[in-house]
């Protein structure tokens, strides 16, 4: 399987010039042509509304609002043009609490810097393969959290009318 990167519109929000250049270089090498770049959260949100990207790559630490706040706004079903957009958070923060906070903001996946081409490629492909349904609960809208017993949560494609009960926001029923 593969992603046709040349068909994708990608939003990249990263304030560090080197990291931004590195990510753009890798994405272009994969074949991406439409890469919309932002260096702060406000511009990222504006581009998100204007360009309706297929994938969002978000740095955590950037001028306000930060990546976490941006992810929350993108997941806001009241105001977001695409609350289902796949979001990959990229950060130098490797602490567990940070990763959990990103998950609770509704990001699909988390990538710790430094970023290698293979890991980036796999993560992006993973976003497309990820068919987890979304969970809407008080204070949370985002992908259903993976079941640790089932490492491939994308194995089942939900039906349009798929509605089930769950105990906690994002937890698998």
């Amino acid at each position, binding site marked *: 399987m593969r992603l046709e990167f040349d068909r994708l519109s990608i939003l990249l929000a990263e304030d560090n010039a080197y990291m931004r250049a590195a990510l753009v270089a890798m994405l272009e090498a994969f074949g991406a042509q439409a890469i919309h770049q932002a260096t702060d959260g406000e511009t990222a949100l504006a581009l998100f509304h204007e360009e309706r990207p297929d994938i969002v790559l978000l740095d955590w630490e950037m001028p306000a609002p930060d990546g976490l706040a941006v992810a929350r706004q993108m997941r806001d079903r009241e105001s977001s043009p695409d609350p289902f957009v*796949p979001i990959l958070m990229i950060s130098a923060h490797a602490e567990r609490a940070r990763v959990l906070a990103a998950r609770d903001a509704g990001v699909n996946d988390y990538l710790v810097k430094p970023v290698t081409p293979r890991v980036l490629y796999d993560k992006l492909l993973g976003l497309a393969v990820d068919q987890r349904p979304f969970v809407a609960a008080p204070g949370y809208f985002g992908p259903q959290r993976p079941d640790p017993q089932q490492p491939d949560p994308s194995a089942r494609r939900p039906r349009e009318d798929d509605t089930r009960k769950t105990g906690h926001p994002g937890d698998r029923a």
Partner: protein
Amino acid sequence: MKIIPAPCKPADQAETVEIVANPNRLARKALVMDSDYDRAATPAISRAERALEQVRRQHRAQLPQFLDRLTEHHAAWRARPRAQARERLLRAAHDLRGCAADLGQPLIGRIAGSLSRLIGFVAKPPAALLDAHIAALRAAGRPDAVADDPVAQAVAQELEDKVAQAIAREPG
């Protein structure tokens, strides 16, 4: 789409949790199942590795500027310890942490990571410990510095230990 109250709670406390099908626009638009993974991934990743190396070469020379900026932010915070100055220093340390290893300076990345933890998790970081991080970063950034020098590694370890102790002393 139905909204179902979560079970095991009285009706007036019930949280509504809804499972919503993921339209997966990305897969529908660009996921192709016609080839095996390696056939598509290997050349794309090889191209990306070459492109990344080119970017690294262009940016390696900028590391001293990153260090200069960090030192300036540190001096500004020491002179006027305001939240904005602290935020600038934290961002500079975090940036360095994020890119130094990628630019072939893992020791700088390690010390910058320790510094960003100190600023990020300790309400009133000890000035001496901040100074020690800045001095260590300047030393590690010298052209003749050797990243795997045992003394340099011991200094980095000592700084990390001190930061861990400072974080452990934080209330809550």
